[in-house]
């Protein structure tokens, strides 16, 4: 049995136990999904303490609404969609402190191959820039990469049609490309370097 199928079976069994009155059975669900939920929340706020608070709130809401899971989708799909709602509304209430995307400055020097730290910092600026996107573009990006670039899973979590999601992703990428034009040079340099290394080999 695959890991996903096993976790789906375990989820179902634990949910049944919780609904039968065994509150402690929920702990297995928490332990199974705490990592993904905290990481998902982290992508929304990039603040560790707040990510744990948000994930905790999502688990509590899941506990309260467990009877509402209709088993049409997997438990994880339901849990992620519920968590996305919790994170979205909480961040509307208390927004993360972000500078507007127009004020984000791309580091002037493209990182050299040797300067790994500089590269990591540049990439972190790009990741943080996602939070400066408007919500309609930000959330698809956050969830798309959280779901390891699975369009269908992201669309299910957001309750959007796949076409709409793709359009929003495309717009978000366009905005990020416009804000970080030097990434294009870096990408070209990396491709050139890779092809040169390939020829030499």
């Amino acid at each position: 049995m695959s890991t996903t199928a096993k976790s789906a079976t375990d989820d179902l069994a634990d949910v049944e136990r919780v609904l039968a009155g065994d509150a402690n059975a929920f702990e297995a669900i928490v332990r199974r999904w705490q990592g993904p939920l905290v990481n998902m929340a982290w992508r929304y706020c990039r603040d560790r303490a707040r990510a744990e608070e948000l994930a905790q709130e999502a688990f509590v809401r899941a506990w309260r609404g467990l009877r509402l899971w209709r088993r049409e989708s997997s438990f994880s799909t339901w849990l992620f969609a519920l968590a996305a709602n919790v994170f979205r509304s909480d961040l509307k209430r208390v927004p993360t402190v972000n500078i507007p995307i127009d004020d984000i400055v791309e580091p002037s020097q493209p990182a050299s191959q040797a300067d790994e730290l500089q590269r990591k910092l540049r990439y972190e600026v790009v990741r943080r820039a996602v939070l400066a996107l408007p919500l309609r573009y930000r959330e698809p990006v956050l969830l798309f990469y959280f779901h390891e670039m699975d369009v269908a899973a992201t669309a299910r979590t957001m309750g959007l049609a796949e076409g709409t999601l793709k359009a929003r992703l495309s717009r978000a990428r366009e905005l990020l490309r416009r804000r970080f034009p030097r990434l294009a040079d870096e990408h070209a340099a990396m491709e050139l370097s890779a092809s040169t290394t390939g020829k030499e080999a």
Partner: protein
Amino acid sequence: MKDELLDRILATEEQLIPSSGFAASVMERIREEATAPRPIPFPWKQAIPGIVLAVGVFGWGAVELTRQAVSAAHNAPALSLHLPVSMLRPVEGTGWVAIALGASLASWLLSRFMIADSRLL
């Protein structure tokens, strides 16, 4: 730029490990909720007669007001003869005022939408 580098940057996030007490603190809240007494349900049985009475009174009031307004409207031409022209002019312009307010609202909504979109550029 092709999207590969952007994909690589955004896909390679450091994986956070929840703090050791995370699951325990979630379960503490769950157990608190599980042992808490159930909220007292709203007393619909007692409230329904009151709600019905209130709806009836307000309905009757609305009917009476409409009836009086209709009868006042029938007498309006006689009254309007006595109104000075300076009072009637603003009333004639009401339609234009409504259109202007509508246009203002539409332009405000449009500008909000455009600002939200231009923030990306």
